[in-house]
């Protein structure tokens, strides 16, 4: 009775999944190759740094978004949250560091609270985070009614540090990918989080405290958001209340590009980091092409489409249906 072969559930599906995992990297490589071809000067320590350093805060924002996607929620507030953190960084941080830290901790606390409320009252995350996005933006405008402020010296210095061997964006990408992978894919907590995204009922039946888990997920997202905001303000040297509003959509795009899905707890941290690099590059890539100004906006849409269409191509040739 032994050895009932069950070959039907392994095989091509695995291969397609692997190609999917490689896709973000391939897309990034293609974009980089195109840039290098147009502008060989970019192929240097200095060039890569210029090309990619604004992806650093995006990578953290993407990890934050991915944390939320892992529990099959969606965070519409990460952009405004990063903006708020940047405002705190540019106003309170230099003069009243203790107060600034308290403010950041409180903000992360509110995030966690939002997670707890979403779980406890079974609310749709989209609405709650939509509400939160107004809360963050309101706080940011109250804190910094008009653009300005100055990031603390240490933060600016840190963000313009010339890292050895490789430019900072590369090191950061490696670091965030490793952290994301260990935290979300490998760790027990990450497994629990993905499980919550896949089948919440199963997690509840196993006796976990769901409120605590979801609050934890949102808190971690908040911490990633804090990292993102501080690094952003370190780069920009000063802030405004709308500085990162776009990060909400950018982070979703990057996470999805990296292989995450909107439901079912399917996420890919390494892919997300590469996705963040790709999205950043795609958005500014156009300066390297000579495109009529009227069509530049649309061109960015086309690049997004092109990159994602690769996925369809893989499915087609990978034999999935």
């Amino acid at each position, binding site marked *: *009775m032994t050895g009932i072969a069950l*070959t039907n559930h392994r095989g091509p599906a695995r291969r397609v999944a692997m190609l999917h995992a490689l896709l973000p990297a391939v897309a990034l490589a293609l974009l980089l190759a195109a840039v290098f071809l147009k502008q060989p000067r970019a192929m240097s320590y200095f060039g890569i740094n210029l090309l990619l350093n604004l992806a650093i805060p995006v990578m953290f924002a993407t990890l934050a978004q991915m944390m939320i996607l892992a529990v099959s929620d969606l965070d519409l507030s990460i952009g405004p949250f990063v903006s708020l953190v940047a405002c705190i960084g540019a106003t309170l941080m230099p003069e009243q560091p203790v107060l600034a830290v308290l403010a950041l901790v409180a903000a992360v606390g509110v995030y966690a609270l939002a997670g707890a409320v979403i779980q406890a009252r079974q609310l749709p995350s989209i609405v709650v985070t939509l509400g939160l996005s107004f809360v963050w933006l309101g706080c940011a405008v109250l804190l910094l009614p008009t653009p300005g402020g100055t990031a603390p010296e240490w933060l600016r210095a840190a963000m313009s540090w010339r890292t050895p061997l490789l430019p900072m964006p590369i090191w950061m990408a490696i670091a965030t990918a490793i952290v994301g992978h260990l935290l979300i894919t490998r760790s*027990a907590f990450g*497994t629990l989080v993905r*499980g919550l995204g896949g089948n919440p009922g199963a997690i509840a*039946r*196993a006796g976990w405290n769901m409120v605590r888990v979801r609050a934890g997920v949102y808190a971690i997202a908040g911490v990633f958001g804090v990292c993102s905001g501080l690094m952003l303000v370190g780069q920009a040297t000063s802030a405004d209340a709308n500085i990162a509003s776009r990060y909400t959509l950018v982070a979703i795009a990057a996470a999805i590009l990296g292989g995450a899905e909107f439901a*079912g707890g399917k996420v890919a941290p390494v892919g997300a980091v590469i996705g963040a690099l790709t999205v950043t590059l795609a958005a500014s890539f156009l300066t390297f092409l000579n495109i009529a100004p009227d069509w530049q906006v649309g061109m960015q849409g086309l690049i997004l489409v092109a990159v994602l269409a690769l996925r369809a191509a893989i499915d087609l040739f990978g034999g999935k249906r």
Partner: protein
Amino acid sequence: MQVSSQALAGEALVEARGAARSFGAVQALRGVDLQLRRGECVGLVGHNGAGKSTLVNILCGALAPDRGDLHFAGRPADGAAWSLREARRWGLRCVFQELSLCDNLTLAENMRIAQPQSAEWAWRKRAGAQLMATLDRIFPGHGLRPDDVVGELPIGKRQIVEVARAFTPGAQPLELMILDEPTSSLDGQAAAQLLAYIRSFVAEGKTCVLITHKLREIFAVTDRLVVMRDGQVVQATPTAETDRERLVSAMGQAVVNDAPQAAAARTRTAGGHAQTVQDVVQVQASTQRGIALHAARGEVIGLAGLAGHGQTAMLLALQEASQHNGKDAMRVEGGTAFVAGDRQTDGVFALWSIARNMTVGWLAQLRARSPLIDLKQEQQQAQQWRERLGLVTPDMDLPIGSLSGGNQQKVLFARALGSAAPVILMDDPMRGVDVGTKRDVYALIREEARGGRTFVWYTTEFDELHHCDRVYVFSNGRVVGELAGDDISEERVVALSFEEAAA
């Protein structure tokens, strides 16, 4: 732990007194007394909606009772303090009727999330090894690996994993195992392996509650039988002191003996399938699909073999062929209607009422006279089917989730049978359906077949093959044999499926 369990055998482990619970207008439990002793296997039986799952949910802390008290190993297990978590800590485990695995995780990861308190490095390896050990012990030859992703497994395999996971010791004690229809998606072999394991489990002084609608299993494995009806316990006797007839009558259903009737029904067409009869379903032979398959008007065709060997895929392919009728190697005339067995993922629309869930299959007819759906007719027809199938519900406008598992399944039958489709595809549709209902549905199928409808019926229960005119046996995704009339027997099916598997 093991020694003490054995020593305590025979003592009371769980005592529930006057447990009651209602859901809105439905009183699911109306004061239930139940005692479970160490070292026994108790069978919990009753018709669909009798309250079995509700009782289980209360025992294991997933639901709070409205009234009544509960004692576990002599300690009160009541109120807010009694939660899933608490129950687990005291050694109570449960395999729920609806699967509790995370599709997106691997087996090892699913093992881990079922162990709330353990935290260590290298947990992945350990959890995987633990689960594999249990799998090997209960289901030797399961063919699973710790890094298989659950979502890629067929439902039978998932249920195996679910059961094995519950039986894996881990850091918490294991005193009482409650299995709510654990064999509903298992093939005969795996079910037998599980039943054998349950015996050795209780022999160690542990306790087991088994809920199943397969009476064969009940008599094979339980020490004591608790019969529930309409939210109450109506009988509790040692298994040895009762028999099939008495059990069924306690459940409130007339004694049935299906086999002779089935055979009689079959003789109508058995052997008489002349080539002159027009086939409505035709699948040509191919290396990929195996030998040819066909079905005529009014025929009931069975798909057999081990679970997950291509039967469901065949049904899906037929469904698709009927929607896109091309000059394919596969031809289906007229429309098809599908009765899902994996109702959670394939059947139920959770946000809809019972009525809507039923009528979604009939929309084409309901708007036959005007572009708009005729609401009155919709309601009337739904009401007719409610009566025809004896749905246990006060109101067809309640959410579908308010129905017990078996009653939900009846809704899916109504959805398909109420449609105009001449071909009905059934994907192991009797999962979790009680004996009484099954008998009614069998009769319904025969009646409809007599009226000219064709049924293609995948089943994991051998008994059901006796209701089929002809049976195709599947192995490794291919059709490997055809049986008709008196040739249809468990031995022949097993022989065919393993001949091919071995090859």
